[in-house]
């Protein structure tokens, strides 16, 4: 796995991040016994979890465990057949995706899904679709500060970027809507070990600038290092949850996801 060479850096990151959520414990996002189906397939079988303001929370688990489905159910791309999704106390189980972007839920979807024929600038502007177009310069600057590579290639089409740059663009585009919670689906997928490091550092930067983050990752070790808390999903259910540090020490997690 790519995890091995990243451990020294990862140890440093641990020290820079307290195990508990900074500040208050108010719940931003809450899933209560959520069941989601794809037709007949029962993908989420009663997921309950919560994300508190200011946290980084990670969902880890094997392929098919329901991680992406959970994110899609939160962002309104799917709707639960049973159970409730609450955002800032409001029931959003039936709210369509485009309204949730306005409400403050940003989703960087699986597979990046950038507009490959539009330029970087056009992609970012599309991300700010819900906002007044004369008011986005500050946000563009912010994204370019996080990802200087994007600024260098501002006029280049999304499809011509490398995998890592596309991932940066996908995150940047989601940030343009000024989300209060950012859902990241596999941001490290297909990236080189160095880029994986960079992406995780940037995720922490975005978080310390005030955005709550719900992170889906296959790279469980890295995810548990940057996150405050984690949930382990198995066949559509929460198998285990707790503080990241505890999960890292957990026997089952070590065996199943950390390759030990």
């Amino acid at each position, binding site marked *: 796995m790519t995890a091995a060479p990243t451990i020294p850096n990862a140890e440093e990151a641990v020290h820079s991040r307290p195990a508990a959520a900074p500040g208050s414990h108010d719940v931003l996002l809450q899933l209560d016994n959520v069941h989601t189906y794809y037709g007949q397939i029962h993908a989420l079988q009663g997921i309950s979890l919560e994300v508190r303001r200011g946290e980084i929370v990670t969902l880890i688990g094997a392929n098919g465990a329901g991680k992406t489905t959970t994110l899609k159910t939160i962002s309104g791309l799917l709707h639960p057949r049973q159970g409730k999704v609450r955002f800032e106390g409001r029931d959003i189980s039936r709210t369509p995706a485009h309204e949730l972007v306005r409400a403050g839920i940003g989703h960087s979807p699986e597979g990046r899904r950038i507009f490959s024929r539009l330029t970087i600038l056009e992609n970012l502007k599309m991300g700010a*679709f819900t906002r007044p177009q004369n008011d986005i310069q500050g946000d563009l600057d912010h994204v370019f500060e996080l990802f200087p590579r994007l600024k260098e290639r501002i006029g280049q089409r999304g499809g011509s970027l490398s995998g890592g740059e596309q991932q940066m663009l996908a995150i940047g585009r989601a940030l343009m809507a000024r989300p209060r919670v950012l859902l990241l689906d596999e941001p490290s997928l297909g990236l080189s070990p160095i880029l994986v490091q960079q992406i995780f550092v940037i995720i922490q930067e975005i978080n310390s600038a005030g955005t709550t983050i719900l992170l889906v990752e296959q790279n469980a070790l890295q995810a548990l290092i940057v996150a405050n808390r984690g949930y382990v999903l198995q066949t559509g259910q929460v198998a285990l949850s707790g503080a990241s540090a505890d999960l890292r020490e957990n026997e089952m997690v070590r065996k199943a996801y950390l390759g030990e």
Partner: protein
Amino acid sequence: MTAVSNPRVQSPWARLRSGARNHRSITILLGWVLVASVLPVLVLIPPLSTFQPQSLWIDGFSNAGVFILLAMGLNVVVGLAGLLDLGYAAFFAIGSYVYAFGDSPFTNVQIPFWPMLLVGAIIAATLGLLLGAPTLRLRGDYLAIVTLGFGEIVPAVFLNASSLTKGTNGIGGIYKPELFGFKFTLENPVPYYITMVAILAVTMVLLYRLQGSRLGRAWMAVREDELAAASSGINTITTKLLAFALGASTAGLAGVFATSKLTFVGPGQFGFQVSFTVLAMVVLGGMGNIWGVATGAFVIYTIQAVVLKELNQFFQALHVPILQSIDFVQYQYLLYGIALVAMMLLRPEGLFPSSRRRQELHATSDDVADVPPPTEALDA
């Protein structure tokens, strides 16, 4: 504009170009006035003057205008929003029948032509919404099949509801337009011509404005990737519905005009070949580029109405055995088919592509190599 910041050092040509960019609506209107005044003069010059008299040319231009209008409307649906509509003639039929019901001795209703233009557009748009609401959840081929069905059903309804529409006989004697007491007649094609040019100019200005608007950007996003569009806060359902409704309203407008000129409407006028011809115009002209599509429509209509006929006469006169016996007008759909296939192979962006389309379709392989295939999989 970007190259030269000081306007005083610009060449007159560059100044003209930047002026045109800054005042697009005025430029479009002036462009239409120019084209509309040059065309009638141009057909007085040989060899065009030998084909047919000027009045027939002008009459033909109005008919071409109907197809330009249809092509510009279908371009919104197919070119801008990326929804393949194979039954577009249905909305043309609806606009035509609306005028036949609203201004003819058949129903004994007499609403003047000018408000009927609006009524036809609105009713067509409403039916566009009604068709779109259940079907726009479908994508690609499936949407094409449903619209193809709709395109067949609408003329069939007009054919079979014979107590309302006189069925296969069609409705005749429909009133012609009238403006401040001035009556349009079949003998004088000029008033129709001027009316059509005015409709085209205004429609084109509105379409350009829409393309540059928020809605235009939403169409672009939906065309590129619906899921990403939704994740960017775009209401994809409304966006697609509006494209459908706008396309339909343009076809409705074309229907009202065409019927007022022909003074007759029958269910046989709206077959699949109409939808197909308009789609061919959009594709050949250059999907997404409004001027290109309009030019494509004009060129194809002229080929169909004039050139093929002239070709017949030309080969008749030559006395070449085989060519003499071919009726080129009969073969027009074969020729469209060949042209479309050739186009897809050689120049998929159309004759007059928008700059964006050209980029899209001529992407080199390494441009797209990094794009991961869209995954709708369950591996959540």
